[in-house]
């Protein structure tokens, strides 16, 4: 259900830029900390694109690895875990997320 809502939101952004033109490709950037299941998003897109009158639009996902800046040890690190944003160097949870929360339409191809 969640991914269906997300696909509707994606289609809304696309339409506001594409206008009446045919949409061929939609590129979406997703951070690792977003709770997006790629398979589910891709499947929901195949339903939503028909409903939103862009049946040819192919969805391309670009993933961004999570990265945090640790306020305890001062280091910036990539996060491997999907369950915690704690600093991998010193295990502190006092971190600022630098990357991983992205969720945006980067570009669309139209004809």
């Amino acid at each position, binding site marked *: *259900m969640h991914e269906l809502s997300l696909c509707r*939101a994606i289609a809304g952004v696309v339409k506001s830029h594409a206008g009446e033109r045919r949409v061929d490709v939609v590129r979406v950037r997703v951070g690792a900390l977003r*709770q997006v299941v790629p398979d589910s998003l891709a499947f929901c897109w195949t339903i939503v694109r028909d409903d939103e009158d862009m049946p040819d639009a192919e969805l*391309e996902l*670009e993933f961004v690895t999570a990265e945090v800046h640790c306020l305890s040890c001062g280091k910036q690190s990539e996060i491997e875990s999907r369950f*915690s944003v704690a600093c991998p160097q010193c295990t502190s949870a006092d971190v600022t997320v630098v990357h991983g929360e992205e969720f*945006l339409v980067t570009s*669309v*191809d139209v004809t």
Partner: protein
Amino acid sequence: MGRFHRHDDGTVHSHDHDHDHDHGHGDHSGYATGTERIEVLEAIFAENDNRADINRKAFESNGIRALNLMSSPGSGKTTVLGATLDELAGEFAIGIIEGDIATDLDAAKLAGRGAQISLLNTNNGFGGECHLDAPMVNRAIGGLDLTALDLVIVENVGNLVCPAEFDVGEHAKAMVYSVTEGEDKPLKYPVMFRSVDVVLLNKIDLVPHLDADVDTYISRVREVNPDAIILPVSARTGEGMDAWFTWLRAFVR
């Protein structure tokens, strides 16, 4: 960065796009001529966030503070709200926006306890939305007399995933997390636990009957959210609830 996409024949794959569009995955007629790439760079939640700002302004122009209350199903949100109304409805005017996929059972439990209630069922479309978003809350605001209120509490749909993503125009987020849910939940649903200002650790009256340790629950929340205020409570017996009422009083003022 890997790219992942699904083709019309159902195949799904991931590959790097360091080249432009001449990559021969099936028939992309129209790719070679007349295709234009539009740079968008627009957040997918931008429209929701705009609408959330409209809600927030509606609250603020009426001097209202708004709280988004979230949790998994069955954690005790409605019981917490009932106890909250019984304690505070005489002190300030409270409006409840009650989100449920279906039924008015929760709204009925809260009726007659001194609050305005606006019920919002989300079961239109694909079997029911799993969260409240800003446009839905905007519709529910129409069911409240904002000029008469000091505090609006949005009781979100019971779900630890989706509600965390959607700003509905609140000034703070709180969640109810009960000790019957297991101490691993902050690690499994970090987006929700990181998003909140307050965690009500509910059902502590059941601790003697469970293999549960309150300190472990608290430290697991701390692992993902060092700044959250964590309040161990039992909405049923009232234990610990004074700390919650104190927090709410300070929030409203």
